[in-house]
């Protein structure tokens, strides 16, 4: 039980640090990086439900992020809907598309699933690009306002930071809760042994569709927040390169853990910024850091930390079992 206690302390400290962070984030540059980190942390947290919890390697997740961004932008700008309606619609539409993607994905496994989702994602992105009357096509969608809720504007950096943090906290709390329910267990059971889960009575098809759907809702919300934070979106941004970045966030942070994707997103967003002091060499260092992480920490940063803790506990545990 001590472990669980530590967990609460850890999250409380993390939340306090996040709440206090704007004190240290003194300019729009730092706030801007923090905004992106929060949005991608939310996106990666949802992606982790699919990749880390359920073990389904989808390369089409960014398309759902794009759907969220466009749905919200179109509703708010073109149809004058309030921001909250935009976010809600983004969540619902992305979630539904996620479920639709899941259908063909049920039949297909492993690397073939990876390519199938990649192709589905690209098809979605290209459809967004070709629906010019709605999405302005490849010109991109500009003039998206910053969020406004019941007359309260999140135009300035600090309030927006707290709005994004609030969304992330909600998302993390959701994942944290789901981990303790039958669905959290079923997700991981499907990942660890699909046949084992099925034979235990878990309806694995149902579980996979659910995982796709829920992670798509996260992507939709994150997409909407992205659109209203950056105020400009274009089909080119939601490309395969971003999918790979997202994947790296979850892997480097540690898939299958709650904290992993958050750490990964913050690291991948901010590390290139830290490394700017080496000027032209920063991307080389950044790339080498990713390589080193992957080779040295196959379970990601969170996985490595967990193993360290576990090794310490098991030494203690064994000692107590012996008595």
């Amino acid at each position: 039980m001590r472990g669980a206690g530590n967990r609460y302390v850890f999250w409380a400290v993390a939340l306090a640090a996040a709440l206090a962070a704007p004190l240290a984030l003194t300019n729009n540059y730092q706030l801007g990086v923090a905004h992106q980190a929060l949005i991608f942390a939310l996106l990666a947290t949802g992606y982790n439900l699919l990749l880390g919890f359920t073990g389904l390697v989808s390369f089409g997740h960014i398309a759902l992020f794009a759907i969220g961004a466009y749905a919200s932008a179109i509703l708010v700008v073109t149809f004058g809907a309030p921001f909250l309606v935009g976010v809600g619609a983004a969540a619902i539409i992305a979630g539904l598309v996620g479920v639709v993607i899941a259908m063909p994905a049920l039949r297909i496994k492993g690397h073939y699933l990876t390519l199938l989702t990649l192709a589905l994602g690209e098809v979605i992105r290209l459809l967004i690009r070709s629906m010019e009357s709605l999405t302005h096509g490849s010109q991109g969608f500009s003039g998206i306002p910053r969020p406004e809720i019941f007359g309260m504007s999140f135009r300035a950096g600090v309030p927006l930071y707290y709005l994004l943090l609030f969304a992330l906290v909600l998302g993390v709390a959701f994942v944290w809760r789901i981990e303790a329910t039958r669905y959290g267990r079923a997700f991981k059971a499907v990942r660890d042994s699909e046949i084992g889960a099925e034979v235990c009575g878990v309806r694995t098809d149902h579980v996979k569709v659910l995982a796709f759907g829920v992670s798509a809702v996260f992507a939709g919300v994150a997409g909407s927040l992205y659109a209203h934070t950056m105020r400009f979106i274009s089909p080119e941004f939601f490309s395969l390169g971003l999918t790979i970045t997202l994947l790296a966030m979850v892997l480097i942070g540690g898939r299958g853990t709650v904290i992993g994707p958050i750490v990964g997103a913050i690291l991948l967003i901010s590390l290139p910024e830290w490394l700017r002091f080496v000027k032209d060499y920063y991307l080389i260092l950044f790339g080498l850091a990713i390589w080193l992480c992957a080779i040295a920490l196959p379970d990601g940063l969170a996985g490595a930390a967990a193993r360290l803790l576990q090794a310490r506990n098991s030494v203690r545990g064994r000692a107590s079992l012996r008595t």
Partner: protein
Amino acid sequence: METFLQVLLSGATMGCIYAFVALGFTLTIAAAGVVNFAYSEWVTFGSYFGVTFAVILGWPLWLALGASIAGCIAIGWLFQLFVFTPLEGRHFLTSVSATIGIALAMQALVTLLWGPYPLTLPTFFGSSAVQIGTISVFPHNLLIIALAVLIIGGLQLALTRTSIGLRLQATAQDPMAARLMGIPVRRMRTLAYCLSAGIAGLSGFLVAPLFVVTNTMGFGLMLKGFAATIVGGWGSLKGAVYGGLLVGLIEALGAAYISSEYKELIAFAMIIVVLLVRPRGLFPERIAEKL
């Protein structure tokens, strides 16, 4: 008919290029289960090596070709030491993220080494087309197709007719049994990596005149190569070649007969259809699943 043949020729050229990339990509998968997402940068380096030797240093083209291949093999050798060997037997995603990291670093290195401006490489036969019947043929395209037939055919022969090729196949199919036959698995894998790198060097040199040499030229190629690899059947060399040709032809025919605007969409939609009909690719590996 004229249009059809012309499109077929250009589709086949692109298909051969994709087949090269898919083949190089598949070699490391087959040999050790390692997915190399830095393959795009291998090809890019192959192109830049070509420019360096042929244009900057002014070597004869064939010599520059050899040197580019050698340069890429050297890169493959370094990868073997620092990337592939630590990744053997790891989860597929681990090799994805490790090689993506290296790819990023290599891409940044290209700009530092060769500067930001696009470069180009002359072809062996100049840049004018030859008229054959009603269609015009660019000799370099014919060279690519001929080399593809030669190299892929030669590789096929080497893999099936020589004892070292058979040993390579044996290593890919069952490394444990291969060791029991006295096959040095480590060296066989290194050979596969170097072959893969050599193909990257060749592809880089061949695509440079068609592609214009830039720091980002490899990524789109690899994406298509990756698709071809899976459409063909994971880890199947034969599948990689046919997958590459298929992707190249679908793209060209789709653009010519349906719409250039929706060309990519058609190509990806076709990939989805292929996977739904054949969930394990065109040439699935015959390995029984055991419970």
